[in-house]
């Protein structure tokens, strides 16, 4: 018995406990902290906000009417008679059309991702938490849609339904649901096996309560980051659909559609015709970089 530990010390008093030296921030606070000190991401986020703002306030800041055609003023270069960025093949002002086009393109970029996150996220959490056959059934269904390359699926659905903005958004939403579902399911499955979920079950909590308080908070991070990275893809795909004539119909301005209609005119004013693509590119790359910055700030590895 001489080898055993013999202890009967009193409980430690509060002073003896080791506390971290400074008040460490909570999770979201540390995320904001890291973002605040990341000038690159902030700069690109500012550009994105600028683009969004310009799109929202297009009617107020645009110099011309986006639908006003002019037979004389067709395909004019930069700076011709007050048209800072030239005119398109029907004589309409490019700057105005670009500003208005931003509305459609941004809408078609963001809305499908939002809806797909909600639906796909829900399916993924349900499947991941339920496990077993429910999970297998859901993921198998997703696998079928995964079997299509995204461009093909988007084109097929939008094409079959006859084009138009709503159909395009629907097609894109369907394309994004499987990956969102998969991300949510992976995150949920990882959490589900951790002890604190078992502890929560041990208190007798209902499944919905556990999901609401314990699962969602942990799943939201990866889902949010993945969704933000999908926005740039969505903008590209949406403009691609419009380029093929499967998005909005003329004369509504849309960057992809504008690229398509201006294509024949590249021999005349090449710079003007390349402009819509520049807009798509800038928007897409800024969203991409902001998403990367968010990922770094949230410390999640995909």
């Amino acid at each position, binding site marked *: 018995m001489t080898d055993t530990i013999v202890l009967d010390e009193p409980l430690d008093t509060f002073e003896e406990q080791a506390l971290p030296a400074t008040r460490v921030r909570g999770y979201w606070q540390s995320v904001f902290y890291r973002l605040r000190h990341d000038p690159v991401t902030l700069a690109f986020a500012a550009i994105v906000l600028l683009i969004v703002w310009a799109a929202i306030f297009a009617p107020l800041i645009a110099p011309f009417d986006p639908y006003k055609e002019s037979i004389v003023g067709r395909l004019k270069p930069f700076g011709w008679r007050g048209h800072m960025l030239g005119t398109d093949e029907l004589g309409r002002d490019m700057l105005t059309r670009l500003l208005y086009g931003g509305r459609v393109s941004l809408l078609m970029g963001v809305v499908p991702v939002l809806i797909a996150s909600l639906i796909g996220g829900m399916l993924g959490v349900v499947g991941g938490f339920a496990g077993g056959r429910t999970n297998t059934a859901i993921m*198998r*269904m997703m*696998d*079928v*849609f995964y*079997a*299509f*390359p*995204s*461009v*093909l699926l988007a*084109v*097929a*659905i939008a*094409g*079959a*339904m*006859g084009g138009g903005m709503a159909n395009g958004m629907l097609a894109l939403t369907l394309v994004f649901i499987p990956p969102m579902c998969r991300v949510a399911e992976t995150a949920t499955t990882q959490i589900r096996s951790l002890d604190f979920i078992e502890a929560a079950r041990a208190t007798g909590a209902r499944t919905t309560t556990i999901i609401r308080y314990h699962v969602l908070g942990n799943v939201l991070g990866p889902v949010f980051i993945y969704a933000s990275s999908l926005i*740039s893809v969505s903008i*590209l795909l949406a*403009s*691609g659909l419009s*380029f*093929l*004539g*499967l998005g909005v119909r003329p004369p509504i301005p849309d960057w*992809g559609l504008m*690229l398509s209609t201006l*294509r024949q005119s*590249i*021999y005349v004013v*090449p710079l003007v*015709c*390349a402009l*819509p*693509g520049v807009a*798509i*590119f800038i928007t*897409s*790359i800024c969203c*991409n*970089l902001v998403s*990367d910055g968010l990922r770094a700030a949230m410390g999640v590895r995909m």
Partner: protein
Amino acid sequence: MGKYILRRVLYAVPIAFGVSVVCFSLVYIAPGDPLQTVMPPDATAETIAIVKHAYGFDKPLPVQFLIWLGRVVTGDFGMSISTRRPVILEVSQALSNTALLAMFAVPIAFFIGYVMGAVAGSYAGSWIDRVVTGAAVVGVSLPNYWLGIVLVILFAVQYMLLPATGMGPHGSTSFDLLQWSNAKFLVLPVITLAMIPIGILARTTRAAVAEVRNQDFVQTLRAKGLTEWAVTRHVLKNSLPQVMAVMGLQFGYLLGGSILVETVFTWPGSGFLLSKAIINRDVPVLQGTILTLSLVFVTTNLIVDLLQSLVDPRIRRA
């Protein structure tokens, strides 16, 4: 091992089945009567009834599906409405043209993307890394069809070096690679097509290499006295499975997603066929093309999965 292969192959079968269900139902989600897609608009009621029966539109949906499936499995995709040729011929010819593009785009994308990513990952954090990563992000954010247009503007309009559209002189569809007069048509489409995969591969490779480098076994290798080059070889070998997975996806993606690039360059491939079919509402061609392309994608994924499990024994899941 053999069991794994068998299981993986068997798993692809219900997926293929699901794919065919989706393809079949594309026709039915379209607005309007599917009958309109195969009938001229001014047909009489009698003709409509006859055609309806001939196509089986008067039967219940699952039966129609099975009939369609039966025909498809034997290679009968029906007749193209616009050209009146068998769909299977059109699709196979178009697919071979697309495959021609992919054949060049894939190795180029893989080589450039992998090297870029490997270099960036090996020098993680340095300016090389930042340049490469920046280039990769650009590649992924560019609309590739726009790049095509820009390249056309530069090389075909301004400098007249390369042709703007088409697959061969005088719009011919046969091809002799060894002639520059033919091969020059390949250059721009291939570059355009390869751009996004290069970006994605560079990113993935960089991440994989950087991650593997940080693992403990790399330190062990150095402690054993290997040269830096030998260590790098080990790192690259270990990062290969992740990259391969992505590459396989990209290949299938190229086949399926070439529609935009082919439209820009009027390259008579499967993507171009698809966009024509959409404009003309040529449903048999639409169904046939989508089905073929997605099945190719499924098969490619299957092959890549199996190859991956050969390279990385950890992946052989139960």
